[in-house]
């Protein structure tokens, strides 16, 4: 049982990290950024390249990859979302242009690296494990959970205690009012994309390390799970995304343990469906944005 909890929290913290970025952009722009999973994937590759070809230790490669992710996110905003601001169909159009950009990124990576799975070289991360109670926990798992918690804390601090965070929250609530109050909405949106994509990049690197699996299509299944997480947590709610990410991780692990591995993915989507039909605002979301 303890083992399942550890595994569940471990998986869940990666889901949570991914979902945080997803839900941040949704909260600010009311648009689903389906290129998020592409940034997730590209930065896993970035870390791989840094470690394998530039011989950087992971401790250095990680922040570099995250930075790259943030910048890539700003590029995504600039190319796929900014030109559509003000258009009446900006929601669906934004969805579609982010899909387009994700496809372009995935194709580029597949061309450069080929479609096969890549792995981090042995020794990139510690491989020892400890026993806590009756659970076997690897050092890697502990590190990943710790990093996820740190980033969550960092995000919370950013949003609640800094001027940037206040401005982001203002734009999320009411962009027009924020503009009137002197906020440079476009810059704040760009900053939100930076933060969101940095989180996605972190999730990508950690995912790649955790499962030792980096492939051009690695973002696809996580993207869909990510949808389930943000819906469960409440679209636009950061604490919701964190909570729901952990919950989904635990739910999946327990499903595999008790029912069987073939239904593991069905859990996420079953939950997604039920939430949307029964309580569209999720666990912690606001009631405002649901029904037609």
């Amino acid at each position, binding site marked *: 049982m303890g083992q399942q909890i550890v595994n569940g929290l471990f998986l869940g913290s990666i889901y949570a990290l991914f979902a945080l970025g997803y839900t941040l952009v949704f909260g600010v722009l009311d648009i689903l950024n389906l290129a998020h999973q592409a940034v997730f994937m590209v930065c896993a590759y970035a870390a791989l390249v840094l470690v394998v070809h530039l011989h950087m230790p992971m401790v250095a490669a990680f922040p570099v990859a995250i930075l790259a992710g943030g910048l890539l996110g700003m590029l995504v905003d600039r190319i796929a979302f900014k030109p559509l601001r003000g258009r009446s169909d900006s929601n669906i159009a934004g969805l579609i242009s982010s899909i*387009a950009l994700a496809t372009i990124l995935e194709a580029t990576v597949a061309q450069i690296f080929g479609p096969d799975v890549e792995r981090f070289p042995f020794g990139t991360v510690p491989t020892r494990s400890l026993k806590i109670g009756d659970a076997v926990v690897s050092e890697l798992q502990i590190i990943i959970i710790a990093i996820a918690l740190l980033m969550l804390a960092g995000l919370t601090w950013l949003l609640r205690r800094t001027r940037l965070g206040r401005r982001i929250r203002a734009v999320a609530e009411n962009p027009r009012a924020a503009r009137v109050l002197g906020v440079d909405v476009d810059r704040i949106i760009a900053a939100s994309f930076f933060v969101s994509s940095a989180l996605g990049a972190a999730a990508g690197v950690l995912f790649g390390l955790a499962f030792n699996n980096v492939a051009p299509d690695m973002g696809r299944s996580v993207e*869909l799970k990510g949808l389930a997480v943000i819906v469960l947590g409440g679209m636009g709610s950061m604490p919701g995304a964190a909570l729901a990410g952990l919950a989904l991780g635990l739910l999946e692990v327990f499903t595999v343990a008790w029912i069987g591995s*073939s239904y593991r993915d069905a859990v996420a*989507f079953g939950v997604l469906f039920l939430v949307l039909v029964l309580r569209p605002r999720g666990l912690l979301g606001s009631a405002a944005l649901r029904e037609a």
Partner: protein
Amino acid sequence: MSLGGLQDFWLTYQSTVAFVGLNGLLALSVYTTLSCGQLSLAQAAFMAIGAYASAILTFHTQAPFALNLAVATLLPALVAVPLGLPVLRLKGVFLAIATIGFGEVVRIFFVNLDFTNGALGLTAVPQRTAIWMIYAALAAALFVLWRIRGSRAGYALEAIREDEPAARTMGIHVARYKLAMLALGGAFAGLAGALEAHYTFMVAPGTYSFTRVVDMLVYAVVGGTGIFYGPVVGATFLTLLPEVLREVSSRVGLQPGPLRLFVNGLVLLLVILFLPEGISSLPGRLRARRRARREAHAA
């Protein structure tokens, strides 16, 4: 061109022609809900239902193919009803997400169903589809959409697309129309699924993924969702493009798979940014620009 040359051409490009037709039908299945302003991404699941139903009938009964196709068309439409009732009242992206969830659940269901051989799917499905059938189905779908346009129902759908609450206050039963369009889209997708299964000899759950329905959406958007034949234009263009690219890619030393993906993404991006009403809106736009230029000259 000699008869032999024609035969060679056909041999090489037969499957392309088939897929132009199939993709056109699939693009229309996404268009039906878009035409009343709803983004539904469940069509891959409807396609799967049609494909599996038809293949199972082929394996276990002696039913004529027409019956298979009829079942493949009707069954998804029926499934669309209990799906649509709770889900169609969701707004915008929430509807899209709910239908994505539905699609994944169906796919996983088929992956785990032993009766249909799970993840491997059904192979050695006899080829019963002829190219003319595909185009007959496409023509039928286009016909239906053509007749709807300009009818009382067609105007209601346009009203729903433009302004749902206002449409309601004109007596339009919005929920019913949305459901009908979801079912119609499901029917198109199911029919395409059955035709494809009996053309490619197989039915595998991996074919009916989120990626597949995104492809359908891309065909519809690139072609243009402002007019009922727009999606078919998009499907034709994007199905033929890889054939052209295949020549290019080998010469330039690029992998055909990633190149096709890249070009699809690029075309989609360019369309959504610069030609949002799709390729099918080009003639209208050019005509309008020529008219404006003529008027400017006259002035």
